[in-house]
Structures are given as structure tokens and as C-alpha cells.
């Protein structure tokens, strides 16, 4: 089977600060990969490179049938090409980033209507179906400010799904939530995993990663230090750095 996502030799630095050193990664269709690691290890930057919100300095990225090369001798993708590419990768942000001037329904419709030029009526029924899926049928016509964090994040997931993406990228989707609201968002992600969505999840929820992810990647200092089946990396880490990182979670319970 050809991998859905293939990344090789990816490097990124911001000025003198090198954030990604040499990232090689592939994700099979339907696979769920969890990215764990300490803050500043480059997890979020890697995720943002995958949908070109951050332009890598060098390396290759392929998602589905679109592939890009970066570095000397290769031209970075043009603006419209970037936009088209991003429309097939869904991204969910730590701080939700819902559009405050639109209702919940309009938030979810925005992608299909303005990017895919989908007729309004069709976009409305698509958005309604997706909001039902994330359990928010009763919030269709309210503005985001009136929602709880967990509800906002579920709208954000519906908004990303509305583009019918090939892959979903979650950037610490539960880090900004009150503990009692984390479960409802993880529940939606779990459901997507069961449906066979290809996903990369940057997370600090170690037990969730063990439960839902097929593979876990541990990153530190811009490198993937250890990777393997979730149970192995989390239950029985081989690298010292992974052990140290995971020990913080075990002691916290």
C-alpha cells in the first residue's frame, strides 16, 4: 500500500533557531499517528509544515497525489497551489480559531462555499450533518462566543471535515480545554479514527495516544527520537529521552 503521507529530509529553521533537523515519516491510509514530546521539540512546526502553513527550508512532502520539494533548486509552491493543497488537509488548532463574526453553521459552511463554490443549500445540509455528527445540532445558529471550549473545538473539527480532507491534522486540540471538556473532543477524534480517517495528532494526552493511535512518534530537539506501535513506545520505551518524558506523565497518574 502506498503511504498517504510521505515526508523525507524535512528541515526548518527560524533564523538561527533550528526547529526541525531531518524528519522522515510516512503514514499509511487510515492510520492514526500520535506525535508526542516536550514543548519546543518541533511537533507543531512539523504539523504546520505538512499543510504548508510553515514553509520548510528543505526536504520533500507528499500528501495523497500532491508532492512538493523544498530547498535549493526547487521553487516553493505558488500561492494558489498552496491554497488548493491545503483544501485537502484538515487542520484543527489548539485555540480553535473559529470565525467570531459567523454563526456555527456559517463557520462550517465557509470552506465548501468560498473554496469549493458549493451551492448554499448543499453546504447547509452538509454543515448540518457534520454538526450532528459532532453532537452540536442544537447550536447551529449561535455565535461561537456562546460556546464552551469543548463545543468550540467540535465545531472546528466539523469545519475542517466540511472540506472532505484526505488527512486530518490535530495541533494540541485539547490543550486549551478545561479537563472536564477534554473527553467530548477526544470522543469525536476516536470516532474519526474508527471511520478510517488518516490522522496526525499532536497531543499531551498520553493515555489517549496509546488507545487511539496506531503509531506513536516521540520527538525531541527537532528529531524523531523513537517511533513504533503505540503500546510499545508508551508502555516500553527504548530511548532514555522517551523514558524521561513519559515518566512525568506516569508520576502525575
Amino acid at each position, binding site marked *: 500500500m502506498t503511504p498517504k503521507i510521505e515526508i523525507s529530509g524535512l528541515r526548518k529553521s527560524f533564523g538561527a533557531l533550528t526547529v526541525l533537523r531531518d524528519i522522515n515519516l510516512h503514514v499509511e491510509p487510515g492510520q492514526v499517528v500520535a506525535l508526542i514530546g516536550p514543548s519546543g521539540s518541533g511537533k507543531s512546526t512539523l504539523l504546520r509544515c505538512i*499543510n504548508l*502553513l510553515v514553509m520548510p527550508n528543505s526536504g520533500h512532502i507528499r500528501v495523497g497525489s500532491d508532492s512538493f520539494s523544498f530547498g535549493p533548486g526547487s521553487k516553493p509552491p505558488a*500561492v*494558489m497551489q*498552496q*491554497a*488548493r*493543497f*491545503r*483544501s*485537502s*488537509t*484538515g*487542520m484543527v*488548532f489548539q*485555540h480553535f*480559531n*473559529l*470565525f*467570531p*463574526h459567523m454563526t456555527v453553521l456559517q463557520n462550517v459552511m*465557509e*470552506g465548501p462555499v*468560498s*473554496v469549493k463554490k458549493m451551492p448554499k443549500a448543499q453546504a447547509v445540509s452538509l454543515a448540518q450533518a457534520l454538526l450532528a455528527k459532532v453532537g452540536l445540532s442544537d447550536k447551529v445558529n449561535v455565535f461561537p462566543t456562546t460556546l464552551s471550549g469543548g463545543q468550540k473545538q467540535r465545531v*472546528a473539527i466539523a*469545519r*475542517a471535515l466540511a*472540506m472532505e480532507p484526505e488527512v486530518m491534522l490535530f495541533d494540541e486540540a485539547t490543550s486549551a480545554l478545561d479537563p472536564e471538556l477534554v473527553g467530548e473532543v477526544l470522543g469525536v477524534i476516536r470516532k474519526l479514527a474508527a471511520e478510517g480517517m488518516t490522522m496526525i495528532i499532536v497531543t499531551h494526552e498520553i493515555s489517549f495516544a496509546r488507545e487511539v493511535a496506531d503509531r506513536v512518534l516521540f520527538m525531541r530537539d527537532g528529531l524523531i527520537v523513537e517511533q513504533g506501535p503505540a503500546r510499545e513506545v508508551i508502555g516500553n520505551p527504548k530511548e532514555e529521552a522517551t523514558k524521561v518524558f513519559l515518566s512525568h506523565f506516569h508520576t502525575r497518574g
Partner: protein
Amino acid sequence: MYQWHFDIVWSYRWLFLNGTAITVGLTISVVFLGLLVGLVAGIAQLSHSAAARWSSWLYIEMFRLTPLLVLLLWVYYALPIMTGIKLDALTSAVMTLTLYGGSFYAEIIRAGIVSIDRGQSEAGLALGMPPGSVMRRIVLPQAIKRMIPPLMNQSIIQFKNTSLVSVLAVPDLLYQGQLVAMETYRALEVYTMIAIIYFIVLLPLTVVVKRAENHLAQSN
């Protein structure tokens, strides 16, 4: 003790009314044109192209840091000698006021755009929207709400600024008043009346600004 004779003002009421109409009309056109110029220059400030950033910066600072009276005189008297293009007084006045107001509007518009959280444009880009649509559909609708009070304040200042065009003999309220004062030797009454007219026209506008500010404070 000075004897006030406001009946003289009344007998020239049509001149005052005509001057007020010209001042209001002039303000409306330079506010409208200035907003267009300001929008372009403000967005150019945030452009990826260095040339766009530099040229808009040069324009903004050139007009922001020069006194309006000097600009008006320069465009009307010096520009024709330098370029050979002779503009009539009204055209010079409208052009100068537009560019002058536009430079202030540009800064307000730029500041309004950058005040919107980066996550908003990232969310739009992540959906696959091109940068232009992100600006039009996501950033500007939110930014404009924040810009309205300072833009209205700037427009009130612009209304008063139009009085300077009288130096080019554009027949605005102040210029017409000066004619009346010269003819009647009743300068004190005339200038008092002019001040009152400016005040009366602007008072309702300040109420609107206050309301807009309160509304904004509530919606945030």
C-alpha cells in the same frame, strides 16, 4: 462695550448655507476618496512585496508629517511649476485633502488588520482559501468593526480640515464667511457664527462615534 449685531449674519444666511453645503460636500468626497486611498495604502503596508511596503510607507509619512496648509499651498502653487500640470483650486483641494486624510486612514486600517489574531488567517488558509479571500471574508469583516470609531474620529478632524481650503479661494463655509466679514466689517459675529455651524454639524456625529464605541466594547 462691543455691540453684537447678529442680524447681519441673518441677512447673509444664504451665503452661510451655501458655504456649509460646500464644506459638507467637500468633506463627504474627501472622506470617501481618502478611505479608498487609505485602504490600498494600509493593505500595501502589510504586503509581501517590499516595493509595495516602501512606497506606501513613503506616501503615508510624507503626508502625515507635513502640515496640511503647506501641502495645500504647495500642490496649488509649486506643483504646476515643477510638473507643468496646472490644477484648479477645487481639484487641488480635493486631491490634497484626500491624500492627507488617506495617510491617516491607512495607519488606522493597518493597525485594525494587524489587531486580528493570526490564528484567524491561519484558519482561513488551512481551509484552502487564497490569501485574498482570507482578507476579504475573514480578517476585514472583523477588523472593520474595530476601525469604525477611529475612522469616524479622523473624519471629524477631516471635516474641520476642509476650512483650510479657503486659502485657495475654494468657496467653503470659512471662505464665504471671510467675504461677509470684509463686506460688513462684522468679523466677530461672522466668525462666531462659523464656529457655531461647525459645532452644530459635528455634534450629532460625535454622538454616533460614542455609540459605536460603546457597541464595540459590549460586543468584545
